[in-house]
């Protein structure tokens, strides 16, 4: 007992002393630090792991193949948030000053962490890139100079889903009198599309019914009895997350709701959510802001440069086609393209967050560029500006065939005019509450 | 009691510490001969219960440790045995305050007492009958929940439960506590009968010096974690100090509690 006690004390003392001395890890002064907030553990790990793998693989690909960006090596450090806001904030604070120039941008991969960082990134001048999550109204770059939301927002997603339903039914005119249900995770994330859907419902005359599912959504029998046995809607949309998705699909099957009329947003379209649902998931549809599968040039290069040499992050090259993996790739792509642009402007050395924000404000990932990378068809081109921090905001519809996703639509464009007005109105309210003066653009 | 080779239970100079800090027993030695009834007397907090628990190895549960000395039973050192092994060897403790299993019936309580036995249902049933013979009241109430029986019945249940383990030796802690005078006598009578008929040895811790000395052969008096005096029950009950401080009898005969003085004679022993 005595001995163990002493040992513990010594170790504890060492740990404390060590951490007090500060993170003394040496970073090469000539490499670009990249901090990546991921969740490889916790309740949402099944969706977080492929994303983290995709992100890491792309960064490693650049290092292995090109020696980094413009000759500057990339130094990737992951920090596990377990999708927990407190941990995420801690990760951000710990990583933000690492490397020669600090963290060039942060992708928190969680709505909760995004909100917790909104104030901090402004003070730290580090761009916050939230691809397909976070605040939709951050599309207004005048009020959110450091927040970027390419390639899509939930509001756009809601519009795209209705757009898709309209084409299925034969035009917006046919929506009148239709019943559409929204099953959503009862949190900030899940509530995002409601305003948009309500506006669309008013406009097109369909009836929107809302079904909140309390976190974490292990039990949805009541919800689905209401939907499947009572309301019997024409379509069901889902803004679900984690284990809620699989449960919803199973319960939909249990009440016999046709999966073909069940459409989820991108976060309800992970492979990891379909697998536990098994046969019940066949026919289920999901929006995606990226292409699916691994038949793209970039995947082949990743296989060649990484997996064939045993350097891949995922379990095997076979996992590289998952949608969450591709999303990780896409995030890495957006970041590295911005880094490249910043280096082109400020010189081929590590860049700061402020410089990256400058680059993001005029980010342009064209179809040609995507071809070069081997990602044409996989991602939609992105054009950002000082005012527009979103881009086109397009998405595709995919369908689960029991093993993988099949793309069943082309890129669908949301109604940008209507959405832009909504973004600006919402951003203006935020600016008022926080006392923010919109920055002048152009 | 001087011939230690014949001794049955022997406690040698044990020291007990609670919580690693509080020293409760400061070198206690005592012996119980086979077939004897030995009383452990003394005030509250003197360390009687701790001594019994040290013997039955129930101290661990209260964060107490025997740090010095040894305890031998039938020539075997038993300090490091767990309570269950000790019960198998025939030493059972009846704890202070009864501790019946409230939600079990009296009969189920008795059956748990036979938990360690491996000699079959028949033998257990026979002993159950024996217990009922000694305690007819238990038989009457055998199907009631122990929690709903009276204090005396619970004390009987606890002793009966101990008997079900077929013990050679029972450590009996404060059997008289909170019982009406008549019941106290009744319980001690049964102790004596068990001793005589079944050959069970007893080590009993008691506040009630008067009764305890009447029923036991030998006694130890404890104060502040030490044995301060020992002797035959008869000798002890005639000792002046024991009379005055434990039996409440001064040389002039029993004095009234109304006439208690604000100062008193000093004891001749030191603690």
């Amino acid at each position, binding site marked *: 007992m005595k001995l163990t006690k002493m040992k513990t004390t010594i170790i504890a003392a060492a740990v404390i002393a060590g951490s007090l001395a500060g993170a003394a890890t040496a970073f090469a002064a000539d490499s670009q630090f990249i901090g990546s907030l991921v969740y490889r553990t916790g309740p949402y790990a099944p969706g977080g792991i492929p994303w983290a793998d995709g992100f890491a693989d792309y960064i490693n690909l650049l290092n292995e193949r090109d020696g980094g960006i413009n000759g500057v090596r990339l130094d990737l450090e992951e920090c596990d948030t377990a999708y927990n806001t407190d941990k995420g904030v801690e990760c951000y604070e710990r990583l933000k000053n690492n490397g020669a120039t600090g963290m060039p941008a942060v992708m928190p991969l969680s709505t909760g962490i995004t909100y917790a960082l909104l104030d901090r990134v402004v003070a730290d001048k580090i761009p916050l890139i939230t691809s397909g999550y976070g605040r939709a109204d951050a599309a207004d770059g005048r009020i959110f100079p450091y927040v970027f939301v390419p390639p899509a927002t939930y509001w756009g997603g809601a519009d795209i889903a209705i757009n898709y339903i309209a084409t299925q039914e034969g035009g917006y005119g046919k929506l009148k009198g239709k019943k559409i249900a929204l099953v959503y995770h009862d949190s900030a994330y899940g509530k995002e599309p409601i305003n948009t859907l309500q506006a669309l419902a008013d406009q097109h005359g369909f009836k929107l019914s809302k079904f909140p599912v309390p976190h974490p959504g292990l039990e949805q029998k009541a919800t689905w009895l209401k939907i499947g046995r009572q309301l019997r809607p024409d379509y069901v949309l889902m803004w679900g997350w984690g284990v809620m998705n699989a449960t919803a699909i*199973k319960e939909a099957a249990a009440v016999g709701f046709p999966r073909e009329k069940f459409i989820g947003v991108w976060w309800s379209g992970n492979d990891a959510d379909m697998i536990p649902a098994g046969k019940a998931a066949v026919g289920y549809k999901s929006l995606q802001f990226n292409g699916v599968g691994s038949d793209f040039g970039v995947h082949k290069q990743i296989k060649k440069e990484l997996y064939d040499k045993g350097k891949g992050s995922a379990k095997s090259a076979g996992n590289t086609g998952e949608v969450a993996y591709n999303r990780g790739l896409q995030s890495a792509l957006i970041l590295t393209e911005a880094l490249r642009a910043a280096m082109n402007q400020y010189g081929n050395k590590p860049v700061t967050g402020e410089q990256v924000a400058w680059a993001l404000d005029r980010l342009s990932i064209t179809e040609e560029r995507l071809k070069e990378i081997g990602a044409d068809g996989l991602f939609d081109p992105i054009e950002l500006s000082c005012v527009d921090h979103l881009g086109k905001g397009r998405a595709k519809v995919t369908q689960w065939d029991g093993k993988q996703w099949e793309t069943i639509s082309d890129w669908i464009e949301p109604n940008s005019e209507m959405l832009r007005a909504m973004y600006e109105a919402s951003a203006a309210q935020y600016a008022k509450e926080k006392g923010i003066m919109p920055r002048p653009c152009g | 009691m001087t011939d230690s080779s014949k001794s049955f239970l022997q406690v040698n100079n044990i020291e007990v510490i609670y919580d690693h800090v509080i020293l409760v027993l400061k070198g206690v030695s005592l012996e119980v001969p086979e077939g004897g009834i030995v009383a452990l007397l003394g005030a509250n907090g003197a360390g009687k219960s701790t001594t019994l628990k040290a013997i039955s190895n129930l101290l661990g*549960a209260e964060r107490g440790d025997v740090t010095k000395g040894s305890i031998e039973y039938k020539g075997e050192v038993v300090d490091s045995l767990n309570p269950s092994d000790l019960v198998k060897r025939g030493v059972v403790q009846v704890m202070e305050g009864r501790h*019946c299993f409230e939600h079990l019936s009296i009969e189920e309580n008795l059956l*748990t007492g036979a*938990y360690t036995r491996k000699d079959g249902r028949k033998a257990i049933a026979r002993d159950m009958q024996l217990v009922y013979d000694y305690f007819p009241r238990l038989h009457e109430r055998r199907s009631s929940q122990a929690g709903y029986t009276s204090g005396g019945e619970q004390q009987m249940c606890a002793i009966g439960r101990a008997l079900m383990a077929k013990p050679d030796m029972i450590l009996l802690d404060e059997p008289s506590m909170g019982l009406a005078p008549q019941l106290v006598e009744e319980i001690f009578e049964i102790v004596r009968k068990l001793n005589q008929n079944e050959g069970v040895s007893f080590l009993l811790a008691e506040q009630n010096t008067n009764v305890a000395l009447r029923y036991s052969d030998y006694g130890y008096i404890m104060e502040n974690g030490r044995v301060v005096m020992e002797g035959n029950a008869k000798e002890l009950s005639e000792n002046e100090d024991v009379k005055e401080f434990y039996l409440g009898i001064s040389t002039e005969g029993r004095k009234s509690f109304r006439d208690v003085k604000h100062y008193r004679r000093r004891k001749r022993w030191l603690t």
Partner: protein
Amino acid sequence: MRIERDVIYIFIATLFLMVAIPWAAGQLSEDIFFEWPFFFEVAIGGLLAGVMYSLVALGFVLIFKASGVFNFAQGAMVLFSALTLVGLNELGLPMWLAVIVTLIVMLVLAIVIERVVLRPLVNQEHIILFMATIGITYFLDGFGQTLWGSEVKILDLGIPSEPGFYFGGAILINDFDLVAALIAGVLVVSLALFFQYTRIGRALRAVADDHQAALSVGIPLKHIWVIVWAVAGIVALVAGIMWGSKLGVQFSLALIALKALPVLILGGFTSVPGAIIGGLIIGAGEKLAEVFIAPLIGGGIEDWFAYMLALAFLVFRPQGLFGEKIIERV
């Protein structure tokens, strides 16, 4: 078992309210669709779901009864056992062998917990032991995932997930729910028999009453605790299989413990039948509320409704439905 009068009263009152409130809500509000077959469908669905809660609550009850420990780690044990089972299966062991190995693992776990946690903390207050089980929770969560990874795993029992059959032509009943209820039922009955009629069962109840006294009559506490924790481990495995086949085996399984807590307060921490009846009431109650009351106030009330329902019960029976009435003595 003597069921007290007020339990019956409360039960009848609850049943009445569970029927009356949905009906009234259906009459009063157009948002609510009320029809008798649909009502029964929801109620039956809720009852069957409730059995799944009972399964988890049962694990809590067993351990609390025998060792006075409010075992926060029950959820983690569900996750751990399911992870182990599926992990072994993925390693190539046939299912039956994987089940056996998992059972052995749960037994080993029980032994380790007894040695490392319970023995040094014997006789401590409830809250300390409760905290210790939280330590176990963290450890198990980390350990299970280190061994088997955090990816989602499939556990397919081969029960079809499509609509089951229509009872009386109108009421939809799900096959999976029915099977789950059946398994839980068998488990409960065998546990009850085990507790009431075996020597070990009696010793378990004795330990539940009074640790020290049990020690003093020679019941070896450590064996008993190992047995109880192992039995709770088996219950956790069954719960893990049932829930895991529903949700996939992943970290979220550990969270179902939260669904079992209202069941636990409703039924009483120490009552096996309480866990069952509690599960049924909570299951049916929360489903009926979600379907027939929630639309009036915005939906998503299932979670707190279960707790509120349990709270309402507690106001009448502070010791839980089947907990023992406390006569306070001084």
